[in-house]
């Protein structure tokens, strides 16, 4: 059974898609079979990979019963990573798409159909706490909350936490918060540092790993690649996502999730 992680945030521009994409890559690079699901009506994952929003069939086609879910999943050159794209959704139909995802069993059915094939299913959600985010929270075991290191993001964090707590109480008792992931951190800048200091000192559940703001993300986005796939010297930000993947796997293990590994080793002799 897969660990289903929804990446959610009430505020836009906190790096949800970047986190979802690069975390999925980092998990897959560790050999864990990972499915990245794009339910954002914008189709942000496809756009991040420099694909036209009419190139890939996906969720929209599944909803319209044009394709079975298995046929909508795209294999990548990274053997352990697959992507379920948003599909060729007409932007004029976004309201209908939101309604269908919220008021039907579509997401539950998709997860049920694929969860035995993957260890991790990462769901990239749109900004805000609307119907699609609620639908994602209703089907996941875990939720990851990216927090941009700036004032507005910090001031709105209670809204996201309130919705997570509500969904857990009413719709999905198995939902667990993995933690708050600070993103776009600029420790050399006073304002960003002050936010992070406030977060570290005032809130629990903040992950040890944080994601810095760096030009490499814009570069990767321009090339339509995850940062670990850029050529040249391996970017330290890609290492951050490896650390994030390790930290998340550890938390999932502590929370009773199935990671399929115990890291048990035989005793060895040094000399």
């Amino acid at each position, binding site marked *: 059974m897969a660990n289903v992680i929804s990446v959610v945030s009430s505020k836009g521009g906190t790096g949800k898609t970047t986190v979802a994409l690069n975390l999925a890559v980092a998990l897959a690079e560790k050999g864990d079979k990972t499915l990245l699901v794009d339910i954002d009506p914008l189709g942000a994952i496809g756009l991040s990979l420099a694909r036209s929003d009419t190139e890939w069939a996906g969720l929209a086609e599944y909803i319209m019963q044009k394709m079975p879910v298995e046929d909508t999943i795209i294999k990548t050159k990274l053997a352990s990573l697959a992507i379920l794209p948003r599909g060729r959704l007409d932007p004029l139909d976004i309201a209908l798409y939101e309604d269908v995802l919220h008021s039907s069993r579509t997401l539950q059915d998709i997860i049920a159909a694929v969860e035995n094939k993957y260890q991790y299913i990462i769901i990239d959600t749109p900004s805000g706490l609307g119907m699609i985010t609620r639908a994602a929270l*209703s089907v996941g075991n875990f939720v990851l909350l990216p927090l941009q290191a700036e004032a507005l993001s910090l*001031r709105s964090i*209670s809204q996201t*936490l*309130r919705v*997570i707590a509500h969904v*857990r109480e*009413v719709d999905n008792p198995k939902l667990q918060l993995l933690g708050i992931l600070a993103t776009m951190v600029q420790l050399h800048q006073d304002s960003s540092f002050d936010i992070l200091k406030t977060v570290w000192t*005032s809130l629990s559940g903040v992950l040890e790993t944080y994601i810095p703001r760096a030009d490499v993300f814009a570069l990767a986005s321009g090339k339509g690649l995850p940062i670990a796939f850029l050529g040249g010297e391996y970017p330290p930000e890609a290492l951050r996502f490896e650390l994030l993947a390790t930290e998340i796997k550890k938390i999932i293990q502590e*929370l009773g999730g199935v990671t399929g590994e115990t890291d048990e080793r035989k005793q060895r002799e040094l000399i």
Partner: protein
Amino acid sequence: MNENSANSYDLHQAQQLLNLLIPRPGTAAKEKPVQLDTPNYLSLSAGNISQHVRKADTREVVAEVTAREEPELVLQKFDSWEACITWCMSATRAEAAFAVDSQGFVIASRGRIPSQGFEGAGAELICSIEQLERIAPDAGKILCIDMDFDKRRIVGFVASSENTSLYVVGLVAPEPLRIEAKQKITQQILDNLPNLD
């Protein structure tokens, strides 16, 4: 120097919620039970909005509501329980709907289905109807059960006739319904029962 910004982050509620959400070692939740403050949010639940609109009542609003309700409650023919509960959801603006047979088995469901499904609710509804009819044995058959819980509202329409088994159509969080509307919905289901049974 102006220090207005010194305390611009009120994270008390955020931390309370985190204590609730992350009961892991090292968090306050382990030290003391979580007591959430009641935030001063305004609830815009369907019932509240509806009451507000009707209190603010203008003739246009009433006319609009009437105009919306009347055409939807005209006689319809359904060839499946799916079609029937879809119509019930649309007519009452319910979040979800389900139909159960006399044994309490769910035969159709649609909408925002809770994670535990409707199996339990369906079985309990069937049991409850039998119990409730004992309250007033001379009052006839129960046609509708309207339950207001503190978190949501559930309405069950009972459909049975001499020639068919008993069925219950349950609606979750529908708009408040007038008695005439309830009777029309029950009649609608009853009229279609021969096609659905």
